[in-house]
């Protein structure tokens, strides 16, 4: 085994599960294996670019973000095409967010999350789901730690605001419906 392959093997063994989970959190179950394989294919091809030590995983996440983003774009196009080509029965698997059973509040926070910008969403997911600290976020997102901290705080506030709007609207709607029954 060459030194490059040996290093790749170490990275693969150490981070496969985390990258797989990253992909699982962002895409449907039937695409997770392919997405994970794409991430490590990139790592294998670009092994010289993979940073050493603790920065390897955030680097992999940044690649994974690209892979998953591409899948999202593909899914977006597929949805449009699906409407045009429904006659041939094209159907697409739902995202994990659609199928995970969770409390209403948690589902609503995901809905609120979707109202944020893509960069805010990824920042929050990396921070909360992948539990990256500001240093790792800096590597994953290619921005300074100061910028990470500022953006993270803003993103949390935006998410809370969207969540409040969503829950307030639903509460109002619910009250209106109950009133209508009278």
């Amino acid at each position, binding site marked *: 085994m060459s030194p490059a392959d040996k290093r790749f*093997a170490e990275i*693969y063994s150490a981070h496969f599960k985390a990258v797989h*989970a990253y992909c699982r959190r962002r895409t449907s179950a039937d695409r997770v294996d392919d997405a994970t394989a794409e991430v490590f294919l990139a790592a294998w091809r670009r092994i010289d670019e993979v940073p050493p030590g603790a920065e390897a995983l955030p680097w992999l996440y940044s690649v994974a973000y*690209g892979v998953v983003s*591409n899948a999202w774009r593909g899914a977006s196009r597929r949805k449009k095409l699906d409407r045009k080509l429904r006659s041939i029965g094209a159907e697409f698997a739902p995202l994990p967010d659609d199928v995970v059973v969770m409390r209403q509040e948690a589902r609503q926070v995901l809905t609120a999350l979707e109202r944020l910008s893509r960069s805010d969403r990824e920042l929050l997911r990396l921070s909360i*789901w992948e539990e990256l600290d500001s240093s790792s976020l800096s590597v994953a997102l290619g921005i300074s730690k100061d910028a990470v901290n500022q953006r993270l*705080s803003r993103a*949390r506030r935006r998410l809370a605001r969207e969540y*409040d709007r969503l829950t307030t609207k639903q509460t109002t709607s619910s009250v209106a419906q109950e009133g209508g029954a009278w």
Partner: protein
Amino acid sequence: MVTTESQIVALMDEANPVPDLDKYQVNEVDVAAYLATLERRSQKMTSTDTRPTTEKQPKRSMTLRLATLLLVVVAGVIAILLSQSDGDAPVATDPTPSTSDESALLAAYAAAQNGGDVDTVMGLFGFNYPVKRHPFAVNDYMDSSTELRATEALIAGIRGSGAGLEFFDIEIGDPNSVTAPDVTFSWRFYYAADGTTPSGWFWERDGAPEVPQGEAGCIGGRDGKAWVQAGRFHEFNWGFYDPAMCGE
């Protein structure tokens, strides 16, 4: 009610589809086997054996054959233009396309519009949705500085409509480049509702015009100039330029 930052973080944490990595079940990984797979895949990607041939292609209708042929013509036109675009790209003084370019595009569009097998290209390059398939090598018009090679890319033509215009997409996928936004990109040719008059073309992503990295200005470009993202292509001058699309 006002939700605090800590509350929203807690809620989002609760919504984590994979809350506990230690308990996350994934299949056992054999690194040596995976490395062998990567080697095989790499060899496959660089093998000319994967180039579509007449014998290997499924039986297709005459219409689809015609569409494929015409798209090759389009690709040839791009090849010529790319070959002229090394170094400083010439600035087109007349954005009006030549008759031959227009004819080829219109013919390709009409052919795709009127027939061809609706096919599904599964997985190979990320096109796992129904498309009208026109697989052919693309290296003929790829500059050598790009990462795309003949056996590593595929062109898919997709016809659709939107905003009162018909469009015809050509997409190219590069399985070797998995860092967005390089993976898939597309040209979108727009046609007026009567299906006869090209009204413009420009980059799109997620259905919205987008300015490629490092460039400013409208997509489709001034002077009929178009740019390709992330430096994967040289600048080249081609296409149908509609000032209205650039807000002029």
